[in-house]
């Protein structure tokens, strides 16, 4: 099991901006950003294209259409590191090669999720895919800020539990 690991180094700067969703764009050296410039991810070790690939992978592995991109960016930000550099470079290269063999310019350039999922299924057993997938289980779903999107309320001790706040309020049975 992956230990508790919030890859949240830049979470504060990400979340201090509005949570506008939108396709990602590589905007120049060292950054990828939302088209409306609502937020950006800085990369220092891996390339912007590699980070864009990781972000798309995150959305395709655990797609939640109601969850904006910044949460996914937080979840994969940790791959911008010396430890992960080689794994990411090899993995993205192999994924893009598979995409070209299937007639796309790259993995990210495949426009339909179904096509990208087929490409991911082709690398499903690789350490690269498994590392990214396993990391997302905590990296994405253990962000407290993402919980309200799913209706999950987290701790309730500080509010005295639910004994007077709806532990048995179901009204449709």
């Amino acid at each position: 099991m992956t230990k508790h690991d919030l890859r949240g180094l830049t979470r504060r700067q990400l979340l201090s901006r509005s949570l506008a969703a939108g396709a990602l764009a590589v905007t120049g050296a060292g950054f990828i950003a939302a088209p409306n410039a609502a937020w950006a991810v800085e990369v220092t070790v891996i390339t912007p294209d590699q980070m864009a690939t990781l972000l798309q992978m995150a959305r395709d592995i655990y797609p939640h259409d109601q969850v904006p991109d910044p949460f996914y960016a937080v979840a994969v930000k940790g791959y911008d590191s010396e430890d992960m550099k080689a794994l990411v470079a090899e993995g993205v290269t192999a994924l893009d090669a598979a995409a070209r063999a299937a007639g796309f310019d790259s993995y990210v350039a495949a426009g339909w999720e179904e096509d990208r999922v087929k490409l991911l299924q082709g690398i499903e057993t690789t350490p690269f895919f498994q590392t990214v997938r396993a990391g997302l289980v905590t990296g994405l779903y253990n962000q407290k800020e993402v919980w309200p999107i799913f209706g999950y309320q987290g701790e309730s001790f500080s509010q005295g539990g639910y004994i007077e706040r709806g532990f048995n309020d179901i009204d449709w049975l």
Partner: protein
Amino acid sequence: MVAKFDLNDDQVVVIIGTGAGGGVLANELAQKGVKVVALEAGGRYLPEDFVNDEWESFGQLAWTDARTTSGSWRVAKDFAGLPAWIVKAVGGTTTHWAGASIRFQDHEWKALTTYGAVEGANLLDWPIDGAEMAPWYEKAEAKLGVTRTGDRAGLPGNNNYLVFEKGAKALGYKEVHTGRMAINSADYDGRMACQQTGFCFQGCKWGAKWSAAYTDIPRGEATGNLEVRDHAHVARILHDDTGKVTGVEYFDKDGALQMQKARIVCVAGNSFESPRLLLNSASSMFPEGLANSSGMVGKNYMRHTTGSVYAIFDKPVRMWRGTTMAGIVQDEARHDPSRGFVGGYELETLSLGLPFMAAFLNPGGWGRGFTTALDHYENMAGMWIVGEDMPQLGNGVTLSETKDQHGLPVANVNFDDHPNDVAMRNHAYRQGIAMYEAVGATRVFPTPPYPSTHNLGTNRMSAEAKDGVVNKWGQTHDIANLFVSDGSQFTSGAAENPTLTIVALAIRQADHIASEMAAGAI
């Protein structure tokens, strides 16, 4: 006045582990005036320390020292280094447990006699029965404050229970209620009533759920007869030329090797660590490990036949609100081979928070088939299956090639389902799904077993020395002053959550040890 005993005091009883078995035994002996040194590998955490956040709490409490796995069970693939979700802390897994406290049914003490020989299974009758255990169960229920026993009322049902109850009644189930729980429905024994907060698995911050960490342990210490040494990891049990145990070697909190002398040693480190310790204590006199003349140390590992059923409805349930496991259907707990398997199972309400649901709903799963389930987390209800699994010689604990932080071989846990386990699980999945569909579920999830929480049988109790490791008192057949005091004593698993039985056995064992000591027999 907390006691402090000398390392060379050879009159103390040394207890290894402070959970439902060791923690209770330590207090019960201390109350009788017996001097006890309890060695606990983990640290001390009390309600104010518990964290209502699933991963953070896991990091605080769970046993995450190395273990290895093998066999065909899915846990070995998805959680290869985490065969069990149990606790390393003073109080052991009584901080994490759900609180379900139900007695064995009378026939379950006699599994071999009741079920007959089952091919591939190593069934055996316990050398004790329901009549023998009844008074000890009563003491255990009073100690834990179990609801629906004595004059204690049941807990109120939360949203998850109300869905579960309606489905159960639609199927015609009769034994449906909010459980017999070691969670206070009213103030009891100095502990407050349940506030329906959730996070029962992360340690109850109100202290409404019984845990040895804040009941038996401090009460034992208050007698002046109990010293608990935390961060004390036992490496080896020592013996003399006559084969009697004389003490234990342990690594203290600074990593220094210490030796504590003992009159009696009681092993209560759960069904992985207890056999591991006996095997790691092999010597020239006992080359196969201590108390292992039968060859049964580490064998016959049982983990209950488990699994979960989650279901999505078209309206909100909010299952995480309130007590995590206060709801039970007992109709299927009977032995009825017409269902295609021997033994029975319980269905119990269960919920996980979003982070653990993502980790455990379908480990390794991804894509929209997985994520659309989580999208409706708010509309989910959940239940857990707990049924009797078959003891098998090939299932169990052996010493791994992997070493821990002290250089000691870790436990490898091997497990394959028995066909009876598979048949029971599939039956339970069908019944659980039918319950939720009767309430209008739009999608159901027969979810695979989590890393084990009920770990049983690896030092089992037997009438004959050739069939098991300990006798009816938990005393090893081979060494008179060496006892086993945890769930590894279990001869068979029964359908019930094991903690109440572990506690009842520990109270009974304390009574026996104290009287044998007084008589000078050990």
